[in-house]
């Protein structure tokens, strides 16, 4: 009798029958392995969670200390049922990991979301040889070739210089993107205070506590309108719809996202300064990663599966879409 596959897609997420656990389940399950702290991958209410120390901390910050009944920090490879699992950096956000599942003479790597552009805010992606590579496909179209982040930050800083009377409001997701942007601004030599929305405070504090220097961060709540002239302010994009944005002088609305490469996307959002800064792999990095790992099979979790399927087809690779539901495009 044939053994069941090592991992199978279920409505809750990817399931491992031999170890009786789910990876990044989108609903509460008895045992979850979590790749990273973004809310569509890390949800509250599981019986047990195995994740990196940073991901567990981030989940506690976001959901409260009782986000799960029991937790375990991923360190050395762990035996679960009939399989061995290990965690490897994914380069996406602080604490993000790929999860390798090994058993029945086969190794599957579930990448979660990943990026290959280096950032001081998290450990770089580590290529792990495998038989099956489970990849995201958020930016899996050949039009997505993200420029180097330094070039985007240079555009931001020249806009700040050209508009000394205006505040620059940068929309960036609270976990990962915000810190990636702040760190890149610091690397460019900007050492003035950066103002942050309240929703970013605890996550930025946590990064600092983990030794990631984000420089002088101040709450964007205090101060008069004129005080923010020439300032850089970072906030979750949802804040731009709120009365919160009214406190800044004639703000330049910027948005840091891989989607900003498409003009229509930027215009729809009313963005004046689109910054193409992403924490996902773009097309060249995605296809190069598959080439580098050269797995026997590619499984695709979410995004533009059809285009990546086509590329695999053209390069004679075996691939299949998993049609997992519940994961979002690069979050806002």
């Amino acid at each position, binding site marked *: 009798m044939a053994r069941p596959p090592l991992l199978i897609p279920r409505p809750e997420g990817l399931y491992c029958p031999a170890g009786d656990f789910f990876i990044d389940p989108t609903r509460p399950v008895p045992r979850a392995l979590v790749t990273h702290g973004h809310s569509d991958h890390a949800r509250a209410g599981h019986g047990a969670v195995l994740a990196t120390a940073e991901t567990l901390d981030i989940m506690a910050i976001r959901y409260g200390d009782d986000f799960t009944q029991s937790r375990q920090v991923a360190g050395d490879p762990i035996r679960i049922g009939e399989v061995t699992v290990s965690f490897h950096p994914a380069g996406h956000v602080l604490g993000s990991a790929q999860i390798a599942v090994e058993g029945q003479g086969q190794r599957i790597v579930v990448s979660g979301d990943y990026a290959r552009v280096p950032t001081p805010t998290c450990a770089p992606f580590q290529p792990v040889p495998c038989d099956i590579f489970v990849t995201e496909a958020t930016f899996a*179209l*050949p*039009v*997505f*070739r993200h*420029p180097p982040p330094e070039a985007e930050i240079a555009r931001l800083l020249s806009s700040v210089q050209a508009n000394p009377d205006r505040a620059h*409001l940068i929309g960036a997701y609270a976990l990962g993107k915000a810190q990636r942007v702040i760190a890149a601004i610091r690397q460019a030599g900007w050492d003035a205070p950066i103002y942050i929305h309240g929703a970013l405070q605890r996550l930025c504090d946590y990064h600092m506590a983990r030794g990631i220097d984000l420089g002088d961060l101040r709450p964007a709540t205090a101060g008069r309108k004129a005080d923010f002239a020439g300032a850089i302010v970072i906030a979750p994009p949802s804040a*731009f*719809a*709120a*009365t*919160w*944005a*009214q406190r*800044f002088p*004639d*703000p330049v*609305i910027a948005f840091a996202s891989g989607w900003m*490469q*498409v*003009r*229509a996307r*930027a*215009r*729809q*959002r*009313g*963005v*004046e*300064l*689109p910054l193409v800064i992403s924490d996902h792999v773009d097309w060249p990095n995605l296809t190069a990663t598959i080439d580098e790992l050269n797995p026997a099979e590619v499984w695709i979790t979410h995004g*533009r599966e*059809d*285009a990546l399927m*086509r*590329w695999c087809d*053209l390069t004679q690779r075996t691939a299949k879409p998993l049609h997992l539901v519940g994961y979002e495009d690069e979050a806002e």
Partner: protein
Amino acid sequence: MSLTAFATLLERLAFTPQRLGKERLLAAAFAGQPDPERGLMLAALTGDLKLRQVTPSLLRGLTEARVDPVLFAASYDFVGDLAETIALIWPEGTRSDPPLSEVVHELSTTPKARLPALIAARLDSLGPSERYAYLKLATGALRVGVSARLARSAFAGWAGLPLTEIEEIWHALSPPYTELFAWAAGASRPEAAARAPFRPVMLSTPTDLDQLSALDPADFAAEWKWDGIRVQAVVEAGTRRLYSRTGEDIGAAFPDVLALMDFEGVLDGELLVRRGDGIAPFGELQQRLNRKTVTPAMLRSHPAGLRLYDVLIWQGQDLRDRPYDARRAVLAGAVAGLDPRIDLSPQLEFSSWDDLAALRAAPPLAVIEGVMLKRRDSPYLAGRVRGPWFKWKRDPFLIDAVLMYAQRGHGKRSGYYSDFTFGVWNGDELVPVGKAYFGFTDEELKELDRFVRNNTVDRFGSVRAVARTRVVEVAFEGLNRSTRHKSGVAMRFPRINRIRPDKPASEADHLATLQAMLDRAPGEVDEG
């Protein structure tokens, strides 16, 4: 100007929402770039670069030779703009940064058969932003939110020269406009050497009964203000041209009018769709605007003609210094010999301002949008001079409508819901009839913003649907039939006149009220 600098400018123009911001960007480019680069940039924005038109199918073919057609199609589907898709998807090669002039020159001189190879070679040696600018240039449609007029007005502002004079000579000049930039730098004004050039038109300023009461009615002639397109019809040495009041040559869209222009001179009038004695509402004239060519069917169904206000030059004689009454006498004689589809705008008889107020209150046709007053002794002056000519527009139409949707604004209005869609009753259902984003005071904007936030019932992207409880008084200048809008009507210049918290939504106006305001137009208008 390097192609990179041009690409950066296009990008910033496209994402800068305010007009003032765009003008600033353009001024910086005029100041910072040398000839002939800045002139070519200006020509690219005004649509005056006559390059070989590169077709979308040529570009598609080039791309499919380099990129898998399925992936290309999927990408185009996602991006939605052909030039942008190709700019992003084209394989990276070496990077060069040619001057704009070099690129323009080769695009305008390369024979058609060698164009594909030329374009491919260029795309191979440019970065993505430059590829985008290059393709927009090659296809002839920049779409960066800058009209030809805005570009000229930015030039005038930067050069410190009157826009009217620039518009007068514009059509006599050609890219790269070196004489124009020399004029800006202090040289003498370039001569309008073109045949049948445009002359700056005389414009009026608004007035009302209060201001008029200080003036003597006997000093003024009055006529209706016709709601068409103000034009200048020029015939000189056999060359016939029809210009808009900003100096755009719109003759190609109106061959029927050009055919009627059997005279020698420069006439000022209103372009209107005319059927027999009737004059169609503005909406019908709109069908014929912005078209490069006009179909025979359109010429038959929407015949155009002129109604004349004034004469600038007649049979070689410049009359602009002569008083209005004298010009008007020449005009009356001139019209007598022309086809009846060119006629004289009749003068109104009145002896007091109250007489005129009564005429204005009850115009015989809905296509009349008020009265014009012209000082009998005034010469024909360029531009909007206060005093000799007044427009006394009819009062705006007012309706009470219910707020339905709101969208966030830009720039100084960031964070405020400032674009409002409103509707009126049709039976027991509300139908949207228009969108307004001005008319209110800053205080009223805050009040509306608060209302939207506290009464949101649904969200679609940046749009919020609100509870249908708030009535606003909407003012607008006219109403067109529309097949594009569910309500069947389209407002002109709608704005929010005031908020009516005192009025329950059930007492807002009904669609029937709007329909009654429509002209009895001969047949439905197809907006294509």
